[in-house]
């Protein structure tokens, strides 16, 4: 594989980000650096979630800590976007003359959470509503404003939805009704898709 150019040369990391990374382990103490990287990882993985504030990070030099936090989030996102492995990340950071303990910590955190970072970034961008959950209920009418007697047929109320990753709250995407024949034909269509997926996997 062709070796990527150093971040400064490739223009991937801005001067602000590089300055923020250089503060780690220097202006910001090694202990606080660890804490800051852990916090930045949480921000990257769960930007919608409520993350407990860490006041000690901002006690002495708030502006610098904010800049470093931004730098770490950017670094993790860009490394994931470009599919760097831990070795490549380390190499890129070495070029920037960053504190070695900070490089160690950044590389460790990146490698340990790479899978989650990839999954997170898969969800970003434009997507159609993604169905992960399906709910159903069977109901039969007894009487209605237009009819004194039942249709005598059970209807299926199908609700397709997904769960918000941050809160776990369920969101309905679409809801519709069908009878037994229509439901059977829907199942057949879905099975047809599944069959095609399996064929593709084998091919």
């Amino acid at each position: 594989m062709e070796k990527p150019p150093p971040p400064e040369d490739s223009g991937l990391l801005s001067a602000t980000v590089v300055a923020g990374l250089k503060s780690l382990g220097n202006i910001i103490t090694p202990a606080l650096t660890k804490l800051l990287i852990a916090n930045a990882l949480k921000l990257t993985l769960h930007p919608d979630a409520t993350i407990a504030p860490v006041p000690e990070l901002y006690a002495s030099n708030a502006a610098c800590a904010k800049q470093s936090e931004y730098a770490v989030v950017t670094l993790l996102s860009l490394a994931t976007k470009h599919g760097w492995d831990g070795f490549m990340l380390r190499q890129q950071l070495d070029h920037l003359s960053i504190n070695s303990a900070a490089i160690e910590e950044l590389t460790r955190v990146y490698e340990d959470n790479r899978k989650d970072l990839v999954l997170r970034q898969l969800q970003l961008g434009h997507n159609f509503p993604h169905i992960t959950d399906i709910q159903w209920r069977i109901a039969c009418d007894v009487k209605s404003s237009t009819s004194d007697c039942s249709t005598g047929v059970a209807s299926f109320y199908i609700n397709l939805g997904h769960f918000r990753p941050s809160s776990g709250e369920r969101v309905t995407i679409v809801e519709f009704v069908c009878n037994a024949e229509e439901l059977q034909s829907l199942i057949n269509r879905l099975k047809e898709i599944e069959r095609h997926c399996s064929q593709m996997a084998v091919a």
Partner: protein
Amino acid sequence: MSSLRLSQQQRDHLTLLQRPASDVVELCKLAFDYLINGPNPSRYETMAKKYIESCSPEAVQRAVEALISLLISVTTRVSVNTSAHMQSVLRQTFPELSSDVLEVLEQFVTSKRNFVEGSIKSANIRAYRLVNLNWRLEVRTASRSLLDQCTVCIVMKLYLHTEPKNENRELLSVDLSDRSEQELATMEEDGRRHRKDVIVQTDVSSLVHMIKTLEDALAESKTRRVRNIVDAIH
């Protein structure tokens, strides 16, 4: 066993049923035609001249409309399980009619029962029904946030409609050739109001989960317990 409660006006309009069964068959055919294509005055005029010398085309139309009203009443007010039950209800409602005519009427109300049931009973609160599904299997190879990826994704377009049932929608389809532009625009607007297309996506494991869950629902509907309840309500 109870008879149907018809208004005096309805009974007056249905006096044309007191004719030979062959004439009543023609009236029932006109009623079927009315359900699908709407009123057709020229046919009522022909009918009035040909079979029923002593009546006006308006009287034929009123009889046709009263027949449709009867069909709706039978479907929505009477819970009928057997042919004998239906015959008995009709006999009690129209004691003056001959058994030939009653037989024709029974065939008329039975044959269109499902049509009316779908159109009226389930249509008072119209939920969206799934009428069609298109799908596409995609492999996403890159995105702005992740350049190197290989994600299998199934995109589905769900066609939803608030019309009661597939078979009824086909029956309700009309000939568009001799409609005015304004009528066509109104029909299109009406169609748009009752239609919704939704594009969604899913992954293979969620798809398998969906199939399993829907099969559970279908299996549950076939259990003795659910069948007993539905039969008891009906």
